């Protein structure tokens, strides 16, 4: 026994001394410089890097989209680095999982903010998480560019907040008027929405759209984010006699569709939020037939503009990208364009200032931020037919 204890002690001491050596070794060379210090001297450009922090829900209900963020931002960085980087800098990424939890998201943001190497943050997925981080962007002077936050109140919360996703103040009323009213020709509908900042705001704008289009609202029901059984909400809305159901959600949409069809309610389903997601087709099968989705882009392998991105994304993630992933790619592009336009030192502050003036045509179309830090995007109308998505109406529909 004593021998064992002695052996363990020796091993522990050896490991501690090795760890100590490692720590000394890493402290000897010049600390990994931030882009700020390296940009200032203007030399040794080939070695210089700019690092972005990514916050994404890699687990939980929105995991499909979070993993899409991770893959798409990596593809963007690989593409930009392969093309020689930006202003001589190579880009680097660090991605952490928020599980779409606002507190976790803010913890990660703070960690990034206190890391001098991080020059900007890309994320988070939900508007709630992004809004929780907004005061921190101001406090630390660090840009948060969300690929997907579409709550109209988010981007205006701080001059460091940006979003490359469309804004629900225009998309939700458009869905009510143009998709439900004109495209489907419906005069009444029922709505179920996620009880979060995003869901409540989107629902409010959607209802205002129904009102101005003269479409009668037969039922409007909310549910919490971790809901698994929607049967009670479905029964409630089914009892209104509605023949059209609008779902304002992302990750729960497949489960809701299955439960709607499982309940025997034969209604037309429209969903604002999920994009043309592969998960919907995989998880719903035949139940998804006829589903209508308004979406700012539809990325296919045969679209020459996006086929390269599609292929790279598929190789990395084993599923087709949604518009959310494209927006994550676009967020890196926006930051790159901003850095390109900076003459002097690349700092967190100069990135923020430069982002306000970027204007470019990228994979997600033309990107130019408005005064509130958001962008305008046109929407397609996509429908599930024979197990696949079909673009029914192109950009500029009504």
């Amino acid at each position: 026994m004593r021998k064992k204890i002695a052996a363990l002690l020796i091993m522990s001491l050896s490991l501690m001394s090795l760890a100590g050596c490692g720590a000394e070794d890493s402290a000897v060379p010049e600390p990994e410089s931030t882009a700020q210090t390296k940009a200032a001297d203007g030399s040794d450009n080939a070695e210089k890097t700019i690092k972005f922090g990514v916050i994404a829900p890699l687990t939980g209900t929105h995991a499909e989209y979070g993993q899409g963020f991770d893959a798409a931002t990596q593809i963007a960085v690989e593409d930009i680095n392969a093309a020689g980087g930006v202003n001589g800098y190579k880009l680097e990424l660090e991605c952490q999982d928020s599980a779409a939890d606002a507190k976790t998201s803010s913890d990660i943001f703070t960690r990034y903010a206190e890391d001098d190497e991080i020059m900007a943050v890309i994320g988070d997925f939900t508007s709630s998480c992004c809004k929780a981080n907004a005061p921190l962007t101001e406090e630390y002077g660090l840009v948060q560019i969300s690929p997907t936050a579409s709550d109209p109140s988010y981007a205006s919360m701080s001059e460091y907040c940006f979003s490359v996703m469309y804004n629900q103040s225009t998309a939700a009323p458009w869905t009510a008027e143009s998709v439900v009213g004109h495209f489907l020709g419906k005069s009444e509908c029922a709505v179920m929405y996620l009880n979060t900042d995003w869901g409540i705001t989107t629902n409010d704008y959607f209802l205002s759209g129904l009102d101005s289009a003269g479409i009668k609202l037969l039922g409007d029901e909310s549910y919490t984010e971790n809901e698994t059984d929607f049967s009670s909400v479905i029964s409630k809305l089914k009892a209104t006699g509605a023949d059209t159901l609008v779902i304002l959600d992302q990750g729960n949409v497949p489960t809701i569709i299955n439960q709607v069809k499982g309940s025997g309610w034969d209604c037309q389903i429209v969903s604002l939020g999920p994009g043309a997601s592969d998960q919907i087709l995989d998880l719903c099968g035949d139940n998804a037939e006829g589903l209508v989705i308004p979406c700012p882009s539809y990325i296919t392998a045969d679209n020459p503009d996006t086929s390269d991105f599609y292929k790279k994304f598929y190789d990395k993630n084993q599923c087709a990208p949604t518009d959310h992933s494209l927006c994550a790619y676009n967020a890196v592009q926006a930051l790159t364009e901003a850095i390109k336009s900076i003459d002097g030192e690349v700092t967190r502050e100069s990135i923020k200032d430069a982002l306000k003036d970027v204007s470019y045509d990228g994979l997600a179309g033309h990107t130019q931020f408005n005064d509130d830090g958001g962008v305008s995007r046109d929407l397609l109308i996509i429908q599930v037919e024979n197990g696949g998505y079909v673009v029914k109406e192109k950009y500029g529909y009504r």
Partner: protein
Amino acid sequence: MDGYLISQIVNGLCLGLIYALIALGVAVIIGIVGFATFTQGEIVMIGAYSSYYVFLWSGNNLIYGMIASFMITWIIGMILYKVCYAKFFDSPEYISLICTIGFSMLLKNLAQIFFGAEKKPMLNIIENRIYHLGIIEVSRVQIMVLVTVLIMVTILSILFTGTSWGLKLKAVSQNREAAALVGINVDKTAMIGNCIGCAIAGVAGTLIGIYYQSAYATMGATLSMKAFTSATLGGLTSVPLAALGGILIGVTENIGIAFSSASFRDIFSFGFLIIMLIFKPTGFRRKRGARA
């Protein structure tokens, strides 16, 4: 009573049966091992994943799926017993309780690493047929869940009251020292009790996966709390009363939602639990902590 309210009560019954399925295992574990468990939700998830992969391999063979989930969760139950209970019988109860919480986190995170964070489709395992009984609509899967709960309650009741093996389980649950004195292998018996509880949750996982048509790593989180609530209502250790607790929780939630919003679901279930425990702290049992 109008058709809408009846349909909400039927929905509540079906959801309650899902809670009951998981609560059965909780009651068995607390009754025999004597410790609370917070891993049932994750055992349900492992059961769902087990059957998902067997369905892929066997072409949606339901029997194979159930056998696989039963066996794999039985093995998980053995590991769980060794890690969370075996060493802590003489320690304060909160030690094993915290161990089960840690074990559940471990299982959830390992599932996300090995199976991926995305939902796995469990489509068309059972044909989606709706039966109309007057104004009541019931699906085939809902009938299957009901039948499974009834079969399990019956089997477990017979096992605990009508067999010598059940007597051993009961003896261990009532007094470990006395059971050891009469020659019962207490450790092995308690482990088997835990494995039975886990295997029931595993089979529940298969049915829940089929019912919701998907399996994913976080599927057990909410269900676990509801199952524990159901078992608490049933007096913690009684199998039939735990099932009754689950059904009542499900019905209470849905009637509440019928008159308000689904956003208040947890208020109804946990509110019901609190009110019930204020007036009857032993739950539906006459005596606190009486064994199964």
